[in-house]
């Protein structure tokens, strides 16, 4: 296939919702009134919201047209680094819509919620097995919420030891949620510089670790796609000073069945079910960020815990050291359900999932490394990070490369992250992509590199095919217009 995969397609314009419709229309089947109207104090009654009135077809066309302006995993390869945009199986959606689950009230008596409790209990077990950290809470609603839970556990643990601590070490490659979550718990984040190979050096950690430091937050594999090979030494240093090790498990897709996270010194780990465990990202969420901990930290997990007594599943609140509740109910159950459905479908193949994810990333790395600058030339895990250094000579930047990829029918990689790499292009293909797709992506990247030499302006003017071209973000921020 020589043509670029992107075309302008059939894209329709569509106004905003309130520019459509006509008063008196309805798009919802309203139940018959079978009771009398009751009086209500006029002082409490409002005018009602100014929503447009639309017919059912108005609504259907509106959102169908809008959806056509979007790119999803089902549209094409979505190699967004750190986000693990793997295929979201259709069967997961079928399972989530079973009325017994979809319609279940969270405060049903336990006798009427055994299925949901069993599902959560079994999921806890599977996640404990995959990570090697056996005590699990599935309550956090996203990765960052898991981090917050982890930091609450850090704080509660040290408080329980009788000596609260004030600082947390965070490597310079960390995702922004790490310092933000630590700060929410009142911790001061102390930056740790990674070494010349892109991984943490034990001596840098030793220098900073003291008895006022609650612990360290480590992403492993880290955001450069590299395995933190000093993790055990680092963990020992932190543990010797009485600290804890937090693992940001956003990159778990690289190491399932390869590394037992409990074995390498991590005490608390969050998973992103919307990354590693195939649940859809929904254009922003919802996700789920279960937290897995060592047996020692189990008493601090959020309540209620899902437990099993004989054949009966129960919610247990009786954990006096618990950090408390982080979600109104039990977390994003519908997402947990999709992850559970995925785990049952993949079963014993999880090691292959990680192997192929890593194979795909290394394949891209090897085939593109002459064309794009590779700041850390060593075997990568599930993602690889390039830069725009070679293209800068032609005044072409990472942003231009990313935008041009859209014209080729690919979602761009993550760009300008991690912050320690200038002009970063972070590619995570995931195991879902076949060799043919990877080859097409590699071809596109090579064509773009050639274009950077031949016609830099073609890149500056990209993308050409989507509904809109580059947008003025400066104007949006200077004069924010946040509603219509």
């Amino acid at each position, binding site marked *: 296939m020589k043509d670029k995969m992107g075309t302008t397609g059939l894209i329709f314009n569509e106004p905003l919702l309130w520019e459509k419709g006509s008063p008196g229309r309805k798009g919802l089947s309203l139940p018959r009134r079978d009771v009398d109207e009751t009086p209500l104090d006029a002082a409490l009654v409002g005018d009602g919201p100014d929503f447009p009135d639309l017919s059912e077809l108005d609504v259907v066309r509106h959102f169908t047209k809008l959806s056509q302006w979007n790119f999803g995993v089902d549209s094409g390869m979505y190699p967004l680094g750190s986000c693990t945009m793997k295929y979201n199986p259709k069967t997961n959606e079928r399972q989530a819509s079973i009325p017994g689950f979809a319609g279940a009230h969270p405060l049903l008596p336990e006798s009427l919620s055994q299925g949901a409790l069993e599902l959560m209990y079994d999921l806890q077990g599977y996640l404990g097995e995959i990570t090697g950290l056996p005590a699990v809470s599935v309550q956090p609603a996203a990765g960052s919420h898991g981090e917050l839970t982890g930091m*609450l556990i850090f704080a509660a643990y040290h408080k329980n030891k009788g000596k609260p601590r004030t600082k947390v070490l965070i490597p310079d490659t960390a995702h922004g949620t790490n310092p933000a979550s630590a700060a929410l718990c009142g911790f001061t984040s102390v930056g740790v510089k990674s070494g010349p190979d892109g991984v943490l050096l034990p001596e840098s950690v030793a220098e900073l670790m003291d008895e006022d430091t609650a612990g360290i937050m480590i992403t492993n594999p880290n955001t450069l796609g590299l395995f933190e090979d000093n993790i055990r030494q680092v963990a020992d240093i932190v543990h010797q000073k009485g600290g804890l090790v937090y693992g940001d498990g956003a990159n778990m897709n690289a190491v399932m069945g390869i590394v037992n996270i409990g074995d390498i010194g991590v005490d608390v780990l969050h998973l992103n079910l919307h990354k590693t465990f195939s649940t859809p990202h929904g*254009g922003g969420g919802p996700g789920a960020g279960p937290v897995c901990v060592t047996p020692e930290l189990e008493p601090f997990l959020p309540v209620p815990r899902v437990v099993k007594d004989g054949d009966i599943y129960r919610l247990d609140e009786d954990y006096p050291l618990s950090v408390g509740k982080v979600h*109104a109910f039990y977390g994003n159950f519908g997402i947990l359900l999709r992850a559970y459905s995925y785990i049952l479908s993949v079963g014993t193949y999880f090691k292959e999932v990680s192997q192929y994810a890593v194979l795909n990333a290394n394949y891209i790395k090897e085939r593109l490394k002459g064309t794009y600058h590779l700041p850390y030339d060593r*075997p990568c895990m599930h993602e690889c990070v390039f830069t725009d250094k070679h293209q800068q000579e032609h005044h072409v930047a990472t942003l231009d490369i990313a935008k041009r990829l859209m014209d080729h029918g690919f979602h761009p990689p993550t760009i300008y992250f991690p912050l320690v790499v200038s002009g970063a292009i972070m590619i995570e293909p995931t195991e879902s992509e076949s060799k043919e797709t990877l080859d097409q992506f590699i071809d596109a990247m090579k064509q773009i590199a050639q274009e950077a030499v031949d016609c830099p302006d073609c890149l500056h003017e990209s993308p050409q095919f989507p509904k809109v071209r580059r947008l003025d973000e400066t104007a949006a921020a200077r004069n924010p217009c946040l509603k219509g």
Partner: protein
Amino acid sequence: MRYLPHTKEDIQEMLQVVGAADLDALFSSIPDECRRKEAMNLPDPITEWELNGHMDCMAASMGAPPFYKVFMGAGSYHHYIPEITRQLLLRSEFFTAYTPYQPEISQGTLQTIYEYQTLVTRLLGMDVANASMYDGASGLAEALLMTIRATRRKKVAVSRVVHPLYRQVVKTYFAPTGFEVVELPVGTDGRTDLSGLADLGELAGVALQSPNFFGCIEDLEAAGKAIHTDKKTLFVVGFSEPLAYGLLKSPGACGADIACGEGQSFGIPQSFGGPGLGMFAAKQKYVRTMPGRLIGKTTDRDGKTGFVLTLATREQHIRREKATSNICSNQGLCATAATMYMAAVGGTGIRELSRLNRDRAEYLKASLAKAGHTSPFSAPTFNEFVVRFPDGFADTWQALLEKKIVAGLHLAPYYPEMSDCWLMCVTETISKNTIDSLVKEVVK
């Protein structure tokens, strides 16, 4: 495994390019001491068809509608979800997309969320709404932390009739911070008693919920005035049933500085408590201290209208430890569902639907009262209310489960002094006939 496209030949060719002898060699950068020695103990994969059977079977144990009649709200409401919402949400362009970091190919998500922000501000009478928080509880916690940022004060007050589970989450969020949360008592009418407010000292924010956990509609206007006698204090209005604002005066019209709550009622399945939707809105002047993502309108190079993520400097990926929140992934698809729902129900429809919820609940309230089971509170209610039942009702309640009726939520675990009270909820999904049959069972 149908999710893995790799053939043996592919793997060999790729390994050759990579220069690895076998798949194991790909992991050579992982020191031996970090390698997992034992295989994971996971079950054999099951087929799609086996999975269907297994999940159907598990779900069959759940006490959910339509087989069960559930007269329970308390932060999770059974409303009809139009089929169009379910089907449109399955447009994979929406549900398999990530956060719209690349606006040129995310205009569908971006315009939808811009519409969501707009409709939420119109519903709540506020100036700006964000793209969502995790749920009503964490949204309330974030709102209270926001009042502390905005005022640089250290104490907040929360009504005791705010959802007890939300208050627990607030407590969790505040525990390590050194900021203080005090509780405002409930008056005999079932509304928050604000008479002691002046004695609480300098407050960053005061949070009420309306309708509150007892279903009572708070007098928000009066509360707003009382709270704003201290001009610096922010008035936070929470809610767990947004449908009420199809009928009631909006938080903004009553002087709220922040309005936040659970949006599950708008087209989102109850799904055992999540995913829901943390709706979050504020007055314009607080926009820079708000948590969460915001979508703004702008133009592209050719002058065409488009939408982008904006004011992102508040967020963790830029401001890191100084961010206004740690939130990254939010509840985007649930906000999308709510937008579709608000579009489908429309301005005319939401008034009717909201009224019907209230009127059916009033019908149950009156029917129970006729039989001698009255509410301990006099304040008006929306689609939920508290009823005091005579001794022995706990047994009746249990017996009714056998008849596939869940006759409300017992309040004893949440308010020990109300051990003879149940919180009842009626929405548009429960007809007069079903209400009558409940009353017959309860009264006999």
